[in-house]
């Protein structure tokens, strides 16, 4: 299980916390959580891989919020944060992010932003709606469109 999924979960967490040091700490908690909660996994509520990804995402996002990083991130203009963040460059390994960037760069900027806010920063749809000044219903449909587009991109990418 570790061998097959650690890389993907590591990537998700690294994307969220932007620091290898924290990522290493968090992924340990994530695997312990997965181990302890495996009996709570309910297949009717989603696939196992998705379930693990969500545990990784939630743990990492909780971590960010608890460390008070959230404000700092909110104050940064997004495209800068995603591609040129100072923290990202301090990981000194920007090649780690190339695959991800290539895929998401195929999306329009507003779709990238949407995915980044919801998926990597844990914004609720209400918060996104406020931040981007678009109606809640539109946030939801746009999110769907973004993922549909992403699906096509990933097809080509693989």
């Amino acid at each position, binding site marked *: *299980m570790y061998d*097959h999924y650690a890389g993907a979960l590591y990537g998700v967490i690294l994307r969220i916390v932007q620091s290898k040091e924290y990522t290493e700490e968090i992924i340990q908690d994530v695997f312990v959580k997965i181990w302890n909660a495996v009996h709570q996994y309910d297949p009717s509520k989603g696939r196992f891989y998705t379930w693990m990804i969500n545990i990784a995402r939630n743990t990492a996002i909780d971590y960010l919020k608890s460390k008070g990083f959230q404000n700092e991130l909110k104050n940064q203009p997004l495209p800068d944060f995603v591609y040129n963040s100072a923290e990202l460059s301090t990981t000194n390994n920007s090649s780690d992010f190339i695959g991800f960037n290539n895929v998401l760069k195929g999306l329009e900027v507003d779709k990238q932003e949407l995915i980044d806010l919801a998926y990597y920063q844990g914004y609720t749809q209400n918060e996104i709606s406020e931040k981007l000044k678009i109606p809640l219903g539109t946030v939801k449909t746009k999110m769907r469109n973004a993922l549909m587009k992403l699906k096509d991109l990933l097809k080509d990418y693989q």
Partner: protein
Amino acid sequence: MNTKEYISSGIIESYILGLASPEEAGILECVMKNNAEVKAAFEEAQKTLEDLATSQAVAPPAGLKSKIWNKIQQEQTTEEVQPAVISDITAAKPQQDVKLQQDIKPQSTGSWKTYAVAASVLFLVSAAGNLFWMNDQSKTKEEIVKIQAEKKAQDLAMQKMNQKMKMFSNPDMQMVMLKGVEKHTDSKAMVFWDKKTKKVYLNAENLPKAPEGMQYQLWAIADGKPVSAGMYTEEKDSKTALANIPKAQAFAITLEKQGGSAVPTMENMYVMGEI
């Protein structure tokens, strides 16, 4: 709202991202059970985010795997040893006993536990690894249920083994082997007699299951006279003291009516052992 509108409303994506309200989630879970189209869209959206995660995978540092294993092992050990200790408060000074034992046989207890935990972790990890390579969804679900049951069973077995281990490692514990008599030559049992507290524990899992309405009774033979040393139940096995026996030269087990008898029914004697 028809199916297409429902799907394109983005509710599925909200749900997967954990952003749907409990009501929305409840509705979607219900709709998915009855609507193949919605279910398919749900699978597809999950797949997209999984592919995204796969495509941006980053190789974790080499030492991470063993760090995680250690962490899980630690959790397992503390989790499983804890109840055993609590259920065995009666045992005299367990701390010191364990220490004594370790002095005699360095590391025996510790490494035994570590191996057992490591083995169960290894097993689960490998079982999990196998199952995630299977593509068949329904089979996967079955396997996960099986793994969950297996983990439960293992946890229980582990707890039992820990209890027995404590018995064995207690230097005050005198072990008396009871061997089958007459028609029950295959039967055997083990009495653990704590020389300090005088408490008597019984391991009798090898005896045949007692018939309905009957129960095994342990007897201590002191100066030629049998004294009841308590009634045996499976739950008490190697765990709960059956009686306090200050003096005995032998132990024996007979099958008696539920609740026990005042004197042993000699023709129903299964095992016996001298000290």
